[in-house]
């Protein structure tokens, strides 16, 4: 009997004190993208994108929703400034009716200024945070004001964060931008022989936004959001950008190419092009020590499908395919070399050449690791590409080639 009384008592105490961490699902503002910018006087400016479930949530609405008739924006970008990132974040809470919740966040954008100043300070918060998922958050550097980028309207994926998310999901279509999970960013930051990189996000002019006759404004928004290229870091500071070709060169070496197109000159006729769609690729770095210094050999194996041939080529002949193999292997090699030259110029070993060296020659690495930033721009990089065209679509010959 006494024991039963005790249990009841404990339950009552629970009721009295409980629900410390309870937060109803509708009380939270789900941050889907956050951007960090450096503000004036060394302050930090934080932009958090919170969706409006009233507009986005499907299905039957429960209850009376006051103001629902007003065509509401599907999201709201909150902006706060503070001395630290957490400070800025809590500044926002003074204007947000909902507690900001970061576990659903998938996009993290650093402004260019912030990235150049160094992101180490804010990264600590992100690393410590319980809510932020490192494996799922993609890191970007914004070219231009991140607030503007996160406010570009779009009729399909109405929330820019979701749009970015979906573009990242389809990155294998081109492999010309380099999104990187925060966990990987943090890992490369901690490695001695590798520097971090991040994707680049920009607001581009929308060519489809043309004012047609009889209309006052264009039906399309004037700006469009685009993921492009990569930003290279040295330690936690950004040192420069790679363009789209160079980015794929980087991704080849990092084994991150999931697909995409390779355009290269078609043999036989001047000015004509052929296009390959990448199926899968695999790369390996093999360091060597010679008298002339360190040589890095990047070995790439690639397989692709032929999707387009402009020139008059009988692609049903094996020797023609062999020739095409050779040519597109050269194109891949060029991309890699372009990236390597640019990275050496910027002095950022995002490829992990140093790491590859350390893995193979741990003892030598100990001697040179302090000087690696100076050694890296001078190392010789060789690329060996073995490329294969496996299939060529539904036809053997281009349409105008006489039989």
């Amino acid at each position: 009997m006494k024991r039963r009384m005790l249990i009841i008592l404990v339950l009552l105490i629970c009721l009295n004190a409980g629900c410390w961490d309870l937060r109803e699902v509708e009380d939270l503002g789900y941050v889907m993208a956050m951007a960090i910018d450096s503000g004036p006087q060394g302050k930090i400016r934080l932009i958090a994108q919170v969706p409006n479930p009233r507009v986005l949530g499907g299905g039957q609405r429960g209850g009376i929703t006051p103001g629902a008739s007003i065509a509401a924006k599907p999201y709201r970008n909150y902006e706060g400034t503070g001395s630290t990132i957490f400070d800025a974040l809590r500044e926002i809470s003074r204007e947000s009716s909902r507690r900001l919740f970061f576990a659903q966040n998938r996009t993290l954008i650093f402004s260019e200024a912030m990235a150049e100043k160094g992101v180490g300070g804010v990264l600590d918060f992100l690393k410590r945070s319980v809510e932020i998922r490192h494996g799922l958050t993609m890191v970007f550097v914004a070219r231009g004001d991140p607030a503007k980028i996160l406010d570009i309207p779009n009729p399909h994926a109405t929330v820019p964060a979701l749009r970015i998310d979906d573009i990242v999901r389809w990155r294998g279509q081109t492999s010309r931008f380099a999104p990187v999970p925060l966990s990987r960013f943090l890992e490369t930051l901690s490695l001695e022989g590798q520097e971090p990189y991040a994707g680049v996000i920009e607001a581009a002019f929308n060519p489809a936004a043309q004012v047609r006759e009889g209309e006052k404004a264009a039906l399309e928004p004037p700006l469009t959001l685009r993921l492009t290229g990569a930003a290279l870091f040295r330690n936690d500071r950004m040192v420069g950008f790679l363009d789209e070709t160079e980015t794929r060169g980087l991704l080849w070496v990092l084994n991150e190419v999931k697909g995409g197109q390779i355009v290269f000159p078609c043999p036989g006729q001047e000015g004509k092009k052929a296009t390959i769609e990448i199926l899968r690729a695999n790369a390996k770095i093999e360091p060597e020590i010679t008298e002339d210094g360190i040589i890095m050999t990047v070995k790439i194996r690639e397989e692709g499908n032929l999707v387009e041939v402009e020139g008059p080529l009988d692609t049903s002949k094996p020797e023609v395919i062999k020739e095409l193999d050779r040519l597109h292997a050269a194109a891949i090699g060029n991309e890699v070399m372009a990236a390597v030259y640019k990275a050496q110029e910027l002095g950022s070993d995002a490829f992990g050449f140093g790491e590859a060296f350390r893995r193979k020659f741990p003892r030598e690495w100990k001697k040179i690791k302090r000087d690696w930033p100076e050694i890296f721009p001078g190392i010789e990089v060789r690329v060996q590409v073995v490329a294969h065209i496996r299939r060529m679509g539904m036809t053997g010959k281009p349409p105008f080639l006489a039989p």
Partner: protein
Amino acid sequence: MGEVGPMREEGKISAYQAMVYQVSIVLATAILFVPAITAKHAKQDAWISVIIACFFGSLQVYTAVSLARRFPDASVVQYAPLILGKVPGKVVGFVYLFYFFYVGYFVLQEFSALMCSSYMPRTPPIVFMLVLSLLAVYAAYGGLEVICRMSSIVLTVVLATMVLVVLLIIKDIKIWRFLPALENGLGPILLGAIPPGGWFGETAVLLMLYPFIDNKEKVVKTSFLAILILFIAMEMVVIGAVGLVGPTEAACFLFPTFNMARLIKLEALPILERQDALFMMIWVAGMLIKLTTFFFAGVLGLAQWLNVKDYRPLILPSMAIMMALAVQAWENIAELFAFSGEVFPLTIIFVNFIITIFLLITAGIRHISTRKA
């Protein structure tokens, strides 16, 4: 000197149930902390450290079995006075039983530390300790058989979940993160092997269970099987954590196994991302069996030490003392982790290995045994 023999405890357990007990007593905290603590010293060679630790653990459990076999009807708390004489024996017995409570309250602290850091920062830590210890008390009232039955089910679920987590991250595990092997020589690897070695040694709890096992001839086999299961589990988390984020990051993690679950990323099945709270549920279960096994061994030992017939009246007072110790023990999480990595393994090695081997040698020299020829 009191009569040596099994005390009132319903039912016997089989050697396999004893194995479940041995695995449960190590698993939950070990898999949580081993990657960080081991990778701190051994870096990418942490997996080699675990192998070495496994051999050390086998040695410890073999010592324990050898000692236990000399006294088939009594626990170490009961026969320590036989070996060493009354007063030193009682002191050693007390060290043993205190060790159980000591790990018990350490587990309570670890548990509340993780819950407060990762899931429910505003809930007072005492709530987690209280809930877990009440469950442990409930199980302890049930007795050894109930604990074994419960643990075997929980253990199956825990191990299955671990395998599932590893399967989900296996595509992101990169072999090159383990290279180069033996970068800094054997020293750091051995250093990294000490904490897991200590954890493996916790299987020496057999010294308390031995009198209750009915098929004693199988004990050597099942004990090594327990070590093997633990070895596989530890290797899985070590390889998972290091292969996923590299040794430097893995060493930074406070709770590497959890961080591993948080890093699950599946583009094909995004619904499985962010499900680490489910992993937390499973881990609560693992923590419970760990606490229960330690607590029960402690209470049983206490009853034997005091020569009391029934251990049940001691359950609630012991838990109250343990809670009190847990609440005051460590001021912040940094202290707790420094302790768990540096001090804790040495203390458990002292109890499970040094004392055990000392008892074994003394008993051997003095030819003390209650085994029937």
